[in-house]
């Protein structure tokens, strides 16, 4: 998975984001709107908790028997006339897709919004092969036209308000109608006109899948706009790029997951459109269907007993919408296609804890637990965050600081001396009232955390001077 180029660690990126008042306004407005609606959609069902528990158990059972179910899926997709490909990592997946597109003699493909293809950087890989990928989801289109990055799992352009979107359309969409206003209905109509010819002439469609059903070989794409239906129906060739954890054992499981997903993500009883297909059908839809199953770090996550629960995720984004941290920083600060609380546990697991950005993500949380409460598959995100925090290797500076702290805290005399030293240094290290960035080697401490400035006088010094305020 790409770390967005030049991505700083979370605290640095968050600082810039929090200072952007327009961004904060847009995010507060959008997340608060959806929060209230989601609560209403869920309150309608008396058995929400039972559905949630069933989903959790179904996913855990599937993960525990993932080899059996993947082989069953492969067998059934193949039986229905589809082709199954396996990719260990992003590079293999991208190479498979590029080869398939070239075999179909296409230099343009239409795409349904898909987190898996974001994760593997498919659009960039196709561009390097001379193939243009056209995003057809409205929010993905906005982000693509603006040469921006997605900031939300479900609504990649959540950081833009309607006026900004109108400006992007006017600037980047040659066929935008003159006099286009910022009315969302007009903006949606402009996107319809803009993409219609692309759909009609496309020969290759690329999708992800929300679910892959092992016992029937069926793929399921859940969407709202109809761009998904266009992409999986009109082209001659359909390529679906799907993470190996998207599998469900049986057709029947849709009765659980289609009850949970729409209410959790868009707060609807049911999303406007869901397409389900099994291989290829005579006289209906694509003549060739390819399923690319992607590992890309998932088996590493599976090997972690606590971390593997993240593989239950159905990408609803409810956890982003309730997160007090996400609400203030937005998605870009997470430096990954997967932002928010779930991103903070998925990204470091899929990419490893190598970069400063990934090492900082498990700390990008207050552990308030709102994410766990709304998660439709009951992923205990705070538990996974704490688990990952323990796995982050501390820098030499951090280890030295911890060691010295141990020594200082053993002796009241040493502590008092250290406090005097800290108070004396506050003017140098914390001009703005907080310690933000220290030069190396102390940057090993401040790269991933802020610290309050030491007070001018410690409590102990104050007590000694005033006897608790009596003098």
């Amino acid at each position, binding site marked *: 998975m790409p770390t967005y180029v030049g991505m700083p660690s979370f605290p640095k990126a968050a600082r810039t984001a929090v200072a952007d008042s327009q961004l904060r306004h847009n995010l507060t407005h959008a997340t608060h709107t959806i929060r209230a609606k989601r609560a209403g959609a869920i309150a309608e069902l008396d058995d929400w908790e039972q559905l949630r528990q069933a989903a959790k158990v179904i996913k855990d059972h599937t993960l525990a*028997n993932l080899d059996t179910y993947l082989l069953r899926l492969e067998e059934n997709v193949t039986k229905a006339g589809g082709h199954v490909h*396996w990719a260990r990592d992003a590079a293999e997946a991208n190479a498979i897709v590029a080869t398939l597109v070239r075999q179909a003699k296409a230099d343009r493909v239409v795409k349904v919004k898909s987190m898996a293809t974001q994760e593997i950087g498919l659009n960039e890989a196709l561009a390097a092969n001379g193939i243009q990928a056209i995003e057809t989801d409205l929010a993905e289109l906005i982000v693509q036209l603006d040469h921006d990055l997605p900031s939300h799992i479900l609504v990649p352009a*959540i950081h833009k308000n309607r006026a900004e979107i109108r400006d992007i359309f006017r600037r980047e969409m040659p066929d935008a109608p003159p006099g286009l206003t910022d009315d969302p209905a007009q903006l949606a109509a402009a996107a319809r006109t803009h993409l219609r010819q692309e759909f009609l002439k496309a020969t290759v469609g690329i999708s992800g899948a929300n679910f892959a059903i092992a016992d029937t070989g069926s793929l399921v794409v859940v969407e709202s706009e109809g761009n998904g239906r266009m992409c999986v*129906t009109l082209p001659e060739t359909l390529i679906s790029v799907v993470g190996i954890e998207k599998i469900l054992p049986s057709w029947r499981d849709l009765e659980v997951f289609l009850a949970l997903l729409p209410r959790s993500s868009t707060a609807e009883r049911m999303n406007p459109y869901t397409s389900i297909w099994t291989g290829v059908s005579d006289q209906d839809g694509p003549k060739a269907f390819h399923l690319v199953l992607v590992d890309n770090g998932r088996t590493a996550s599976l090997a972690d007993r606590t971390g593997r629960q993240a593989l239950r995720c159905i990408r609803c984004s409810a956890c982003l919408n309730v997160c007090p941290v996400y609400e203030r920083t937005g998605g870009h600060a997470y430096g990954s296609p997967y932002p928010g609380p779930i991103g903070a546990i998925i990204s470091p697991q899929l990419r490893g804890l190598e970069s400063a950005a990934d090492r900082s993500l498990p700390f990008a949380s207050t552990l308030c637990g709102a994410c766990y409460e709304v998660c439709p598959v009951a992923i205990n995100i705070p538990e996974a965050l704490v688990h990952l925090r323990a796995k982050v290797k501390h820098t030499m500076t951090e280890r030295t600081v911890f060691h010295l702290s141990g020594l200082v805290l053993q002796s009241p005399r040493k502590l008092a001396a250290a406090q005097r030293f800290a108070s004396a240094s506050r003017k140098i290290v914390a001009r703005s009232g907080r310690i933000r960035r220290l030069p190396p080697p102390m940057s090993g401490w401040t790269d991933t955390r802020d610290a309050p400035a030491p007070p001018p006088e410690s409590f102990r010094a104050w007590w000694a001077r005033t006897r608790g305020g009596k003098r």
Partner: protein
Amino acid sequence: MTLAREHILARIRAANGPGGAVSAAAVDSAYGAIPRDYLRAHHDPARHDILALFADRAADYRAVVERVLEPDIPAAIARALTGRGASVRGQTAGATAPVRFAAPAGLPPAWLGDLQAGTEMAGDEPPMTSAELDAIAGVVTGCAVAIAETGTIILDHGPGQGRRALSLVPDFHLVVVRADQVAADLPDAFARLTPARPHTLISGPSATSDIELIRVEGVHGPRTLHILLSL
């Protein structure tokens, strides 16, 4: 590629440990033992008017819902198409030409027996090209199943429903739902379907929440969904 497949399967088996390597039958029996304590239906058909619920929920998502008696279906279809034709013509000043709609093979012929002047019907045999489909003003289909709880109709693209593109490209979808096709909730609906067929679940006209998370109807799919619920 075989290499990648074996590699991934081996990593999964290693991650799951020795407990993971059991027979397919053991996996199936573990699956069968998963507790499903959720309700089979949130509105019990024995105590609720499921058809009224379906009509309400579909209308809640801005579908036009009309309840008609079975013998009145042809007249209701004729009326809906004439109305739609007038509004299509209204967008083109001075136009008087007939407006072309499409119907798939297998639709009960009587349903199209009452069509009024100005409404023209096209078939889809041989299949129209995408460009030809794009010139069609709307489509009339039946459906396979409907879900009352969510206001959803499900097409399995069998006889009378047409291939998937037919009910997707035109901007207007008129769909007839028979009372006996309405399932109370998801479990009953999915049990009625044949997984091998292609399926489209439709809940209202196409919509988006992509601008400020506010729902707006009408993007790429049909912008008007008109449901005739036949009693």
